[in-house]
Protein backbone atom coordinates (compact mmCIF):
# COMPACT_ATOMS: atom_id res chain seq x y z
CA UNK A 1 0.00 0.00 0.00
CA UNK A 2 1.49 3.33 -1.07
CA UNK A 3 0.10 5.04 2.00
CA UNK A 4 3.29 6.53 3.39
CA UNK A 5 2.57 9.81 1.61
CA UNK A 6 -0.64 10.10 3.67
CA UNK A 7 1.38 9.64 6.85
CA UNK A 8 3.77 12.43 5.93
CA UNK A 9 0.90 14.61 4.69
CA UNK A 10 -0.80 14.28 8.09
CA UNK A 11 2.39 15.09 10.05
CA UNK A 12 3.24 18.05 7.79
CA UNK A 13 -0.35 19.37 7.95
CA UNK A 14 -0.25 19.20 11.77
CA UNK A 15 2.89 21.30 12.00
CA UNK A 16 1.71 23.72 9.32
CA UNK A 17 -1.47 24.39 11.33
CA UNK A 18 0.56 24.96 14.51
CA UNK A 19 3.12 27.11 12.67
CA UNK A 20 0.32 29.23 11.20
CA UNK A 21 -1.22 29.77 14.64
CA UNK A 22 2.14 30.63 16.22
CA UNK A 23 2.70 33.05 13.33
CA UNK A 24 -0.58 34.83 14.12
CA UNK A 25 0.43 35.06 17.81
CA UNK A 26 3.81 36.59 16.87
CA UNK A 27 2.10 39.09 14.57
CA UNK A 28 -0.39 40.07 17.28
CA UNK A 29 2.45 40.51 19.81
CA UNK A 30 4.26 42.76 17.31
CA UNK A 31 1.17 44.89 16.73
CA UNK A 32 0.57 45.28 20.46
CA UNK A 33 4.20 46.24 21.06
CA UNK A 34 3.79 48.94 18.40
CA UNK A 35 0.60 50.24 20.03
CA UNK A 36 2.33 50.22 23.42
CA UNK A 37 5.16 52.34 22.00
CA UNK A 38 2.69 54.77 20.43
CA UNK A 39 1.08 55.21 23.82
CA UNK A 40 4.46 56.39 25.07
CA UNK A 41 5.04 53.44 27.35
CA UNK A 42 7.65 51.65 25.28
CA UNK A 43 11.15 51.41 26.67
Amino acid at each position, binding site marked *: MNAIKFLFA*AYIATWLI*HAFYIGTLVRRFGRLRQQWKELGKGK
Partner: protein
Amino acid sequence: MKRLFPILSIFTAAFLAYALYRALVVAPTDALQGDVYRIIYYHVPSAWTALLLFLINFVASIVYLIRRSPKADMVALVCAEVGVVFCTVVLVTGPIWARPVWGIWWAPGDIRLTSTLVLWLIYVSYLVLRRFSSGAQTQMLAAALAVFGALDMPLVYFSIWFFRTQHPQPVIGGGGSMDPRMLHTLLINWAAFLCFAFLICWSRYRLEVVQREVEQAHALESLVGAGESAKASMPLSRSSQ
Protein backbone atom coordinates in the same frame (compact mmCIF):
# COMPACT_ATOMS: atom_id res chain seq x y z
CA MET B 1 9.25 33.53 34.80
CA LYS B 2 11.13 35.07 31.86
CA ARG B 3 13.81 32.39 32.14
CA LEU B 4 11.35 29.56 32.59
CA PHE B 5 9.71 30.08 29.19
CA PRO B 6 12.83 29.47 27.03
CA ILE B 7 13.81 26.51 29.21
CA LEU B 8 10.34 24.99 28.83
CA SER B 9 10.40 25.72 25.09
CA ILE B 10 13.70 23.84 24.64
CA PHE B 11 12.44 20.97 26.78
CA THR B 12 9.17 20.77 24.79
CA ALA B 13 11.00 20.86 21.43
CA ALA B 14 13.28 18.02 22.56
CA PHE B 15 10.30 16.08 23.93
CA LEU B 16 8.35 16.51 20.66
CA ALA B 17 11.40 15.36 18.67
CA TYR B 18 11.72 12.29 20.89
CA ALA B 19 7.97 11.60 20.55
CA LEU B 20 8.30 11.86 16.76
CA TYR B 21 11.24 9.44 16.82
CA ARG B 22 9.14 7.00 18.86
CA ALA B 23 6.20 7.41 16.46
CA LEU B 24 8.22 6.85 13.29
CA VAL B 25 10.95 4.45 14.40
CA VAL B 26 10.32 2.70 17.73
CA ALA B 27 6.59 1.87 17.44
CA PRO B 28 6.01 -1.33 15.47
CA THR B 29 4.22 -1.33 12.13
CA ASP B 30 0.54 -2.28 12.24
CA ALA B 31 -0.21 -5.66 10.65
CA LEU B 32 -3.39 -4.44 8.94
CA GLN B 33 -2.81 -0.78 8.08
CA GLY B 34 0.95 -0.72 7.63
CA ASP B 35 2.79 2.52 8.41
CA VAL B 36 -0.15 4.82 7.78
CA TYR B 37 -1.59 3.91 11.19
CA ARG B 38 1.22 6.08 12.68
CA ILE B 39 -1.07 9.04 12.06
CA ILE B 40 -2.67 7.89 15.34
CA TYR B 41 0.31 9.42 17.22
CA TYR B 42 -0.72 12.91 16.08
CA HIS B 43 -4.47 12.45 15.55
CA VAL B 44 -5.43 10.96 18.94
CA PRO B 45 -3.18 13.12 21.21
CA SER B 46 -4.48 16.22 19.38
CA ALA B 47 -8.07 15.08 20.00
CA TRP B 48 -7.43 14.42 23.70
CA THR B 49 -5.66 17.77 24.07
CA ALA B 50 -8.52 19.61 22.34
CA LEU B 51 -11.10 17.93 24.60
CA LEU B 52 -9.05 18.77 27.70
CA LEU B 53 -8.78 22.42 26.64
CA PHE B 54 -12.52 22.63 25.95
CA LEU B 55 -13.14 21.09 29.37
CA ILE B 56 -10.97 23.78 31.00
CA ASN B 57 -12.87 26.37 28.96
CA PHE B 58 -16.14 24.94 30.35
CA VAL B 59 -14.91 25.10 33.97
CA ALA B 60 -13.44 28.61 33.54
CA SER B 61 -16.71 29.80 31.95
CA ILE B 62 -18.70 28.54 34.93
CA VAL B 63 -16.25 30.25 37.29
CA TYR B 64 -16.66 33.46 35.27
CA LEU B 65 -20.45 33.25 35.39
CA ILE B 66 -20.35 32.81 39.18
CA ARG B 67 -17.55 35.19 40.19
CA ARG B 68 -17.15 37.52 37.16
CA SER B 69 -13.41 36.92 37.44
CA PRO B 70 -11.47 38.46 34.48
CA LYS B 71 -8.75 35.82 34.92
CA ALA B 72 -11.30 33.03 34.47
CA ASP B 73 -12.58 34.80 31.37
CA MET B 74 -9.06 35.00 29.95
CA VAL B 75 -8.38 31.33 30.71
CA ALA B 76 -11.65 30.39 28.97
CA LEU B 77 -10.78 32.44 25.89
CA VAL B 78 -7.22 31.09 25.66
CA CYS B 79 -8.32 27.46 26.06
CA ALA B 80 -11.07 27.85 23.44
CA GLU B 81 -8.65 29.35 20.92
CA VAL B 82 -5.88 26.79 21.41
CA GLY B 83 -8.50 24.02 21.58
CA VAL B 84 -9.83 25.06 18.18
CA VAL B 85 -6.28 24.80 16.77
CA PHE B 86 -5.91 21.23 18.10
CA CYS B 87 -9.43 20.33 16.95
CA THR B 88 -8.50 21.62 13.47
CA VAL B 89 -5.54 19.24 13.50
CA VAL B 90 -7.94 16.39 14.35
CA LEU B 91 -10.33 17.34 11.53
CA VAL B 92 -7.48 17.56 9.02
CA THR B 93 -5.50 14.46 9.99
CA GLY B 94 -8.65 12.32 10.33
CA PRO B 95 -9.64 12.47 6.64
CA ILE B 96 -5.97 12.06 5.59
CA TRP B 97 -5.94 8.84 7.61
CA ALA B 98 -9.40 7.75 6.44
CA ARG B 99 -8.61 8.01 2.72
CA PRO B 100 -6.11 5.10 2.53
CA VAL B 101 -7.83 3.01 5.22
CA TRP B 102 -11.56 3.45 4.50
CA GLY B 103 -11.23 4.51 0.88
CA ILE B 104 -13.13 7.75 1.59
CA TRP B 105 -12.12 11.13 3.02
CA TRP B 106 -15.23 11.55 5.17
CA ALA B 107 -18.08 9.32 6.27
CA PRO B 108 -21.22 11.49 6.00
CA GLY B 109 -23.62 10.91 8.89
CA ASP B 110 -21.01 9.22 11.08
CA ILE B 111 -21.79 10.43 14.60
CA ARG B 112 -18.17 10.71 15.83
CA LEU B 113 -17.10 12.70 12.80
CA THR B 114 -20.20 14.90 12.72
CA SER B 115 -20.18 15.63 16.46
CA THR B 116 -16.48 16.57 16.28
CA LEU B 117 -17.19 18.94 13.38
CA VAL B 118 -20.10 20.45 15.34
CA LEU B 119 -17.85 20.86 18.40
CA TRP B 120 -15.29 22.70 16.23
CA LEU B 121 -18.05 24.94 14.81
CA ILE B 122 -19.36 25.73 18.31
CA TYR B 123 -15.94 26.92 19.49
CA VAL B 124 -15.26 28.79 16.24
CA SER B 125 -18.57 30.65 16.80
CA TYR B 126 -17.46 31.30 20.40
CA LEU B 127 -14.26 32.91 19.06
CA VAL B 128 -16.18 34.87 16.42
CA LEU B 129 -18.46 36.20 19.16
CA ARG B 130 -15.43 37.23 21.23
CA ARG B 131 -13.73 38.82 18.24
CA PHE B 132 -16.55 40.82 16.69
CA SER B 133 -18.78 41.74 19.62
CA SER B 134 -17.63 44.55 21.88
CA GLY B 135 -20.65 45.09 24.13
CA ALA B 136 -20.58 44.83 27.91
CA GLN B 137 -22.43 41.52 27.77
CA THR B 138 -19.99 39.80 25.38
CA GLN B 139 -18.02 37.95 28.03
CA MET B 140 -21.18 36.70 29.74
CA LEU B 141 -22.78 35.61 26.46
CA ALA B 142 -19.57 33.84 25.46
CA ALA B 143 -19.39 32.06 28.82
CA ALA B 144 -23.03 30.93 28.44
CA LEU B 145 -22.32 29.72 24.90
CA ALA B 146 -19.28 27.80 26.18
CA VAL B 147 -21.34 26.10 28.89
CA PHE B 148 -24.00 24.98 26.40
CA GLY B 149 -21.37 24.15 23.76
CA ALA B 150 -19.63 21.83 26.19
CA LEU B 151 -22.71 19.57 26.08
CA ASP B 152 -21.38 18.31 22.75
CA MET B 153 -18.19 17.00 24.38
CA PRO B 154 -19.67 13.87 26.00
CA LEU B 155 -21.40 13.12 22.69
CA VAL B 156 -18.05 13.31 20.87
CA TYR B 157 -16.28 11.19 23.44
CA PHE B 158 -18.90 8.51 24.03
CA SER B 159 -20.30 8.32 20.49
CA ILE B 160 -18.00 5.43 19.59
CA TRP B 161 -19.06 3.55 22.73
CA PHE B 162 -22.81 3.82 22.24
CA PHE B 163 -23.29 4.07 18.48
CA ARG B 164 -22.15 2.02 15.55
CA THR B 165 -19.77 4.23 13.62
CA GLN B 166 -17.21 4.04 10.87
CA HIS B 167 -14.70 5.42 13.36
CA PRO B 168 -12.71 2.74 15.23
CA GLN B 169 -13.46 1.81 18.84
CA PRO B 170 -11.48 3.56 21.61
CA VAL B 171 -7.85 2.47 21.90
CA ILE B 172 -7.91 2.70 25.69
CA GLY B 173 -10.67 1.29 27.85
CA GLY B 174 -12.80 0.18 24.95
CA GLY B 175 -12.19 -3.52 25.26
CA GLY B 176 -9.62 -3.53 22.46
CA SER B 177 -5.96 -4.35 22.92
CA MET B 178 -2.89 -2.44 21.80
CA ASP B 179 0.76 -3.43 21.64
CA PRO B 180 2.46 -1.96 24.76
CA ARG B 181 5.09 -0.21 22.60
CA MET B 182 2.31 1.43 20.60
CA LEU B 183 0.49 2.45 23.77
CA HIS B 184 3.66 3.91 25.36
CA THR B 185 4.40 5.84 22.16
CA LEU B 186 0.84 7.16 22.11
CA LEU B 187 1.06 8.32 25.73
CA ILE B 188 4.52 9.89 25.18
CA ASN B 189 3.17 11.80 22.18
CA TRP B 190 0.20 12.98 24.23
CA ALA B 191 2.52 14.17 27.02
CA ALA B 192 4.65 16.03 24.45
CA PHE B 193 1.56 17.64 22.90
CA LEU B 194 0.32 18.63 26.37
CA CYS B 195 3.63 20.41 27.05
CA PHE B 196 3.33 22.13 23.67
CA ALA B 197 -0.29 23.13 24.34
CA PHE B 198 0.71 24.49 27.76
CA LEU B 199 3.41 26.67 26.17
CA ILE B 200 1.04 27.98 23.52
CA CYS B 201 -1.63 28.71 26.15
CA TRP B 202 0.94 30.51 28.27
CA SER B 203 1.98 32.73 25.32
CA ARG B 204 -1.63 33.40 24.38
CA TYR B 205 -2.49 34.29 27.99
CA ARG B 206 0.39 36.80 28.11
CA LEU B 207 -0.82 38.23 24.83
CA GLU B 208 -4.33 38.65 26.25
CA VAL B 209 -2.98 40.37 29.39
CA VAL B 210 -0.94 42.84 27.29
CA GLN B 211 -3.91 43.41 24.96
CA ARG B 212 -6.19 44.31 27.87
CA GLU B 213 -3.53 46.63 29.31
CA VAL B 214 -3.22 48.41 25.95
CA GLU B 215 -7.02 48.73 25.73
CA GLN B 216 -7.13 50.19 29.25
CA ALA B 217 -4.32 52.62 28.41
CA HIS B 218 -6.19 53.71 25.26
CA ALA B 219 -9.40 54.23 27.28
CA LEU B 220 -7.51 56.21 29.93
CA GLU B 221 -5.83 58.34 27.29
CA SER B 222 -9.11 59.19 25.60
CA LEU B 223 -10.64 60.02 29.04
CA VAL B 224 -7.74 62.35 29.84
CA GLY B 225 -8.01 63.89 26.37
CA ALA B 226 -11.75 64.47 26.83
CA GLY B 227 -11.14 66.01 30.27
CA GLU B 228 -8.51 68.39 28.94
CA SER B 229 -10.65 69.55 26.04
CA ALA B 230 -13.56 70.11 28.44
CA LYS B 231 -11.27 72.19 30.71
CA ALA B 232 -10.04 74.20 27.73
CA SER B 233 -13.57 75.02 26.62
CA MET B 234 -14.76 76.10 30.13
CA PRO B 235 -13.16 79.61 30.34
CA LEU B 236 -14.41 80.41 26.86
CA SER B 237 -17.98 79.53 27.72
CA ARG B 238 -17.75 81.58 30.97
CA SER B 239 -16.25 84.62 29.29
CA SER B 240 -18.96 84.63 26.67
CA GLN B 241 -21.69 84.89 29.31
